[in-house]
């Protein structure tokens, strides 16, 4: 087959596909975006696109054609999930939800930013809070709570150690821990390969 076919021809992949990534898009239920008419209402409504290179229509188009590059760019992580694209889409595609599904696949493939990985793995999994008040670094926040007449720690997972364990047990059972471990492994492998490429 001419190499230009693979390079330039992008078909909608949702009927039958041999590409592993495209299959993942199908499995994740992204076929809803087949209704997309490329009108650009999403991009035009996007407050992130006003200031960054993130173009909602482009991300949706790439997902529709099974183009893996959409997972690698930081762009899909610059969507603030404000839901204007979801609300205004004339084809009723839940656009924001589709971007979130794309992010799920990106993480599965190991495309997760360091800051997000630390937040998920070292903070959320470990404490049950996304923004915790425990630990020596956060003493000032506990003191601040007390200054407003509140107990130093709220009656959340912070006050119930067994509740943290419950959350961790759920996260293990549902596959979150495995997902994070795998993402870390893929990230490391990719970093090594890039380093090797540079050396060569």
């Amino acid at each position: 087959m001419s190499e230009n076919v693979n390079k330039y021809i992008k078909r909608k992949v949702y009927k039958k596909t041999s590409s592993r990534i495209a299959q993942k898009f199908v499995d994740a239920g992204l076929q809803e975006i087949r209704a997309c008419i490329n009108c650009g209402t999403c991009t035009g409504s996007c407050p992130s696109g006003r200031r960054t290179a993130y173009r909602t229509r482009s991300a949706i188009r790439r997902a529709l054609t099974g183009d893996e590059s959409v997972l690698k760019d930081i762009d899909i992580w610059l969507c603030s999930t404000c839901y204007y694209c979801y609300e205004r889409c004339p084809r009723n595609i839940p656009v924001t939800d589709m971007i979130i599904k794309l992010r799920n696949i990106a993480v599965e493939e190991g495309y997760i930013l360091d800051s997000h990985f630390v937040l998920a793995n070292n903070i959320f999994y470990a404490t049950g809070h996304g923004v915790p008040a425990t630990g020596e670094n956060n003493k000032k926040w506990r003191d601040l709570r007390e200054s407003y007449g509140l107990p130093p720690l709220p009656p959340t997972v912070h006050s119930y150690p067994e509740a943290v364990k419950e959350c961790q047990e759920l996260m293990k059972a549902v596959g979150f821990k495995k997902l994070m471990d795998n993402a870390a492994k893929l990230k490391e492998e990719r970093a090594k390969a890039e380093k090797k490429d540079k050396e060569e």
Partner: protein
Amino acid sequence: MSEDYKWHYGFFLGCVIPNRYPMIEASIRSVFDHLGAEMLDLPGASCCPAPGVFRAFHIPTWLVIAARNISIAEEIGVNPITGCNGCYGTLRDAWYELEHEYELKKEVNEYLAKIGRTYKGNLEPKHVVQALYLDMGLDHLKDYIKFTFSDLKIAVHYGCHIVKPSDKRPWDGEYEVPRFLDEIVELTGAKSVDYKDKYMCCGAGGAVRTAVKEVAADFTREKLMNIREVGADIIINCCPFCHLQLDLGQVEVNNFYADIIGEPFNIPVIYITQLLGVAFGMDPNLLGLIKNHELTGVSPFISIDPFLNIIKNQLI
């Protein structure tokens, strides 16, 4: 549950309210108690989990942990209520999905069974503003107003997830130009001023703040410039993450974008129940408005003294 109260809620705290902006927690507890609503604790509740980050990493984890949080309120038999648009997004969207997809609910309950919990459903998660506006109603709030401002211009910031996705929200599909928060604000005599792109996102959500702080701050810069242009005295909001982004983010905007903003920004950022409590004549200490500490590097990062001066000049 106490019979002394007309309404009963399970206070879902989330993360940012208790752990970064406890003055918001204090004001919600005080104002709801004052209005005859009991706020019961949800012992052992966790992060909602945040819709822009954790949902974006793994949807099943997001759903199962959200279901666990709602199940804690079910045990007590009250509607979970949150003062955070992010938590509202998660609890409400998860609730909506679980109410509409039986298979999903079954699957989630298989996971919850491992920790001896069940998600039953039926208890609608609510937002503090939803309770004020829809459960109690403006007339009820009006009865409590003791003081009104004679000259206070307020820039109202709704945030995104209190109104969107609109098919899963209680505002009759209105998301382009909602008015409910303006109506609550105007009970205090203050004027809610229009400004360009009033309903625009603060920039923090959707994992953007954690990804690239400068991008989040550029959203905020645009909002702040529009707010300054109409001469607003303060910003009122109903979400602690927007609150953080508009407060701490103001410092970041002054730093990152010093070359294009002209004068640095210093607009006080106040949560809706803090403003209401003042108009109700409540002790500002109960509303988290008075600083009682010598800590550094804590919220609020932009001084609220100009607001306290307005209170002194107009109400006392």
